[in-house]
């Protein structure tokens, strides 16, 4: 039996991108919520993501790296088609990344500036990723309607990240900030409900391929499990967050798990819409795949190294477990 390497690499790449969206999603979400908090709360919010953001962001490099390694032909097409949003995301990424350091090391107005740039960079990253996703699903079509669709998806992605960030804060903080985070979670849920509903309805309209994949009876009936599960996760987050506020729940990480589930389900729906295309309607994963000799080398390497990465990632999360301190940085 020979391995279907393109499929294996699609799964690997998907896993890396999903890991990125969830992990960097929560720290981008936390940073995007900063304007809604007081100065002390902001300090603690940054402390809750300070040890993690860099490694979280690395999953993006791995995801794009796997696209580049496994599907070099598609990599060029995707990256050149998404040129401007990619550049915007990278500028946001630079500003956000260095702001963690600058905001505690600069003085006076500069400190204030970096403080805002942390928020701004995170927001630009999230919005740009939404634009990229919208353009990717629609096969890089351009036009006013597609642009509007892009804005909606960008709003949805921002809302989703805010939801992840808010549930992360429920888990990692307590007191007033935690209660605020519950309120943010509820607002985030309303936003995400609108976003998911809109994107789910709009995507089959803008893409015929997606339409045929989902509206094909009787398969549609089985597929309806996905939106049902998404709805269940939504209710779960709402109720567990409320329970934390009432003080009846001791498991303050439950809302975060629900938010992760929401992302996994949305991601699954998206993956189903796209497969087997790596460039929508144009190039399948088998057409774009790199030479098997190179794929095998990377696969062996990944299978050896990934367990270590997962292992020390878990270690780092254990080291920084529990509620975040008031501040992490020495001035």
């Amino acid at each position, binding site marked *: 039996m020979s391995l279907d390497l393109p499929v294996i690499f699609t799964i690997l790449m998907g896993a890396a991108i999903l890991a990125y969206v969830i992990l960097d999603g929560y720290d981008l979400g936390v940073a995007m919520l900063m304007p809604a908090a007081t100065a002390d709360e902001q300090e603690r919010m940054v402390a809750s993501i*300070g*040890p*993690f953001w*860099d*490694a979280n*962001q*690395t999953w*993006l*490099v*791995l995801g*794009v*790296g796997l*696209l*580049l*390694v*496994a599907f*070099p*032909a598609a*990599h*060029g097409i*995707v*990256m*050149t088609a998404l*040129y*401007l949003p*990619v*550049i915007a995301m*990278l*500028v946001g*990424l*630079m*500003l956000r*990344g*260095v702001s*963690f*350091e*600058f905001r505690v*090391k*600069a*003085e006076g107005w*500069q400190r204030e500036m970096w403080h805002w740039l942390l928020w701004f960079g995170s927001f630009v990253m999230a919005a740009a990723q939404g634009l990229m996703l919208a353009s990717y699903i629609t096969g890089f079509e351009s036009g006013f309607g597609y642009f509007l669709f892009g804005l909606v998806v960008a709003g949805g992605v921002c809302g989703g990240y805010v939801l992840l960030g808010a549930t992360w804060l429920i888990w990692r903080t307590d007191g007033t900030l935690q209660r605020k985070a519950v309120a943010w979670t509820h607002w985030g849920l309303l936003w995400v409900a609108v976003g998911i509903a809109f994107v789910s309805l709009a995507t089959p309209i803008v893409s015929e391929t997606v339409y045929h994949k989902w509206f094909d009876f009787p398969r549609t009936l089985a597929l309806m499990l996905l939106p049902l599960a998404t709805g269940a996760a939504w209710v779960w987050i709402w109720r567990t967050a409320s329970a934390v506020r009432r003080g009846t729940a001791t498991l303050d990480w439950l809302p975060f798990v629900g938010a992760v589930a929401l992302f996994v389900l949305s991601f699954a729906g998206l993956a189903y819409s796209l497969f087997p295309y790596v460039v929508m309607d144009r190039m399948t994963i088998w057409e774009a795949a*790199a*030479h098997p*000799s*190179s794929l095998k*080398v*990377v696969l062996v*390497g*990944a299978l050896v*190294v*990934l367990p270590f*990465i997962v292992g*020390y*990632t878990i270690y*780092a999360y254990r*080291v*920084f477990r529990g509620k975040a301190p008031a501040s*992490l940085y*020495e*001035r």
Partner: protein
Amino acid sequence: METGEALLLARAQFALNISFHILFPSITIALAWILVYFRTRYALTGEAAWLETYKLWTKIFALTFAMGVVSGVVMSFQFGTNWPGFMNTVGNVAGPLLAFEVLTAFFLEATFLGVMLFGMNRVPGWMHLTSTVLVAAGTTLSAFWILALNSWMQTPVGHGMSEGQIVAADWWQILFTPSFPYRFTHMFLASGLTAAFVVAGLSAWRLLKAPRDTAAARTLRAGIVIAAVLAPVQAFVGDQHGLNTLEHQPAKIAAIEAIWKTERGAPLVLFAIPNEKEQRNDFSIEIPRGASLILTHSLDGELKGLDEFAPDVPPVAPLFFGFRLMVGMGVLMIALSWYGAWRVRNGVVPPQWLLWTFAAFTFSGWVATLAGWYVTEIGRQPWLVTGILRTADAVGPVGGAQLGASLTSYIITYTLLLAAYLVVLTHLAGKGAGETGAPAGRLAKGVAA
């Protein structure tokens, strides 16, 4: 927009990206190991002064590292956004090398940097030291993979061809191409020198503001001694690297030495204005037979001129001047570090003017490193991968307007970041200097950073 102009813009953008990026790894690759040294000294002695030194330089490291990480992510996207032809042709070699860099280095350094920066009170001392070592190992591994790829692009071996694409044949050969050992050693030492001068320079700056700061005096000595040891080794390794280049990329050497025509007993051109149009040197100052003596170790050894390789030759002027800038800076760094080592040999703080000189030389490593990279990368032209892929054939379809927008965004962002970086670095080095008249007492108080 002419494709030629789009190509020029794409190249300008790549040059800007990589020039900005290399500034930071050139410090962190070696500074990470210097931190291991500080951390080990603290572990062995338990002295608060070592801890304070470690903490100060960890801050500088963290900032520099963050700059390197974010600009590095930008680099990794450039392959797809601007040079899709690169991956289409040599993706089977470049892809795995980049993937291994992410898998073995990026996650390692990013994860343990968190433990190293924020975990001192959360993990046992030995684990904190181990985290510092793992971060250093990660930065060095990262350099290993990316220099392996760069060396393969310069002197490709170990591959085959299949349907217009390069296919890997022997990974061992691909990793250890003829130029790799020289390039890696040369770059590692360059980082050592760059970091040493940053440590010495910022410590000198500190001593100018707080003359009795014993911690700064100690790091000044550390920086000077490291530089004084590494600088002559670098001169030797650089020479060996040059001989290796003569063997594998003779056109590059011909451009560096501005030798237009093949000749025996070629002179060493000390200075000239290379005249690309007339294929000769104007206003040249030469040492007769010098180049032949240095490169072939014989007074009338034959050196191949650019005419031998035309039309596939790199532009002469940037290589000629870049090389002289690098060597000139290197000579100054040797002289300054040796003189400095002599002056601090008894543990005395050097005189004001010498402190000012070291402060002025803080980023001398950047000048030499950038000049060196310009020589070796422009020297690869017109090839992106020597003999396999031309730079012009790898550029993507992105038009001039989009390129203009991205290039402008990058220029603004990089200017902001670089300015902020320099401001904060000088601020960190001078911080608290005026607060206390008795630095020794402040040291005894320990960790109030």
